């Protein structure tokens, strides 16, 4: 009997602690919005963070996009060839990338490459009491540290996703047209006939903005909330990747069912 009660109490307390974290995360978001004006007075901080989250992620994004595009080209050709419609490979590659893979894979890579760096950096700043020192000097750590990283993530992520889609399509073009020998005119014209700007490309961009928001705010909150120990920071970094990935995939399902059905 007592055992059973303990199990129920454990469930309740874990639910409660998760709700508290969700509430604290939401509060952090509103604090960021409030302090954004202060942080934009020193726009150099945000630009510096765009360099670290965006520009330095460019290599991994471009390389993986090219490979994803090439795999799509190969796999798509294999299936479409059976139905004698290998010219539709351009449509397949473009729609898959612009609608789904571009935003989602970019967000997963972004969480791994930039999100972990943000969490570890902020967690370590907290552990070494740099954030407290700022508060003592009457500098708001939210305006100085958190808000620039938030806006940098929000700006970088859609740009990275757009680059991912474009490079992926070039990867598909490389395999389908240059290696396999699908007709180049059919590749591009079928793509243009079936990819709609306002439906497909803009919806993909909206997805990438939402994912950018989710990944960035999760990474920031995990860093801000990390226990100030080596173990706490390492756990927070792990949680960033896990929660960001799950959030991206879950949000992707919700957004897709809104947009394309």
């Amino acid at each position: 009997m007592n055992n059973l009660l303990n199990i129920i109490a454990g469930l309740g307390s874990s639910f409660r602690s998760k709700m508290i974290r969700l509430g604290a995360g939401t509060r952090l978001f509103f604090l960021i919005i409030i302090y954004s004006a202060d942080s934009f007075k020193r726009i150099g901080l945000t630009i510096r963070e765009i360099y670290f989250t965006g520009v330095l992620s460019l290599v991994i994004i471009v390389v993986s996009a090219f490979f994803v595009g090439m795999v799509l080209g190969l796999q798509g050709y294999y299936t479409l060839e059976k139905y004698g419609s290998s010219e539709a490979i351009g449509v397949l590659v473009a729609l898959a990338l612009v609608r789904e893979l571009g935003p989602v894979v970019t967000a997963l890579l972004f969480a791994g490459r930039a999100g972990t760096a943000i969490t570890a950096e902020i967690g370590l700043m907290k552990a070494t009491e740099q954030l407290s020192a700022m508060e003592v000097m009457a500098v708001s750590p939210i305006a100085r540290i958190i808000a620039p990283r938030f806006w940098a993530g929000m700006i970088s992520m859609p740009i990275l996703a757009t680059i991912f889609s474009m490079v992926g399509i070039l990867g598909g073009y490389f395999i389908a047209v240059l290696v396999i020998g699908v007709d180049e005119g059919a590749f591009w014209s079928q793509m243009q006939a079936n990819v709609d700007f306002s439906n497909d490309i803009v919806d993909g961009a909206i997805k990438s903005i939402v994912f950018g928001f989710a990944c960035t705010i999760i990474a920031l909150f995990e860093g801000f909330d990390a226990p100030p120990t080596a173990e706490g920071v390492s756990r927070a970094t792990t949680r960033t990747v896990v929660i960001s990935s799950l959030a991206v995939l879950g949000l992707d399902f919700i957004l897709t069912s809104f947009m394309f059905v």
Partner: protein
Amino acid sequence: MERTKLDIWVGIFVIIGLAALFGLATKVGNLISNNIKETYSVYAHFENIGGLKPRAAVKAAGVVVGRVNSIIFDTEAYHAVVSIDVDKRYVFPKDTFANIYTAGLLGEQYIGLEAGGDMTNLAAGDLITQTQDAVVLEKLISQFLYSKASEEDK
């Protein structure tokens, strides 16, 4: 790292992003090729539109001359009212035929316009009177089966 160098890299990053978006819009999507700017709208009544959807193509001799704007159901006459936006560069006689065709065997449905011989042209808000409904495959098959059956009865 120096401030200016950082700014340059971020600037390059943003420009690459914009270039990718431009590439998606023009090379991959149909933002430019499908830009029909000035249109006039005409209407057509159909008993059955099949799988016709808003934004479906309107073609004359295979050339895209417009788009389907909206499809509504008229509850007084019980037929579909299709509003068509036709490019201002193209004019059609009043007795133009509007038929619903299917692109390929299983493709999308579109409206095909076939010009008649009338001297006056369709103006904005006019009604295309001569229409032909979409072919519904089930109806065709059942007609075929009935005619087969009646042949065997004889």
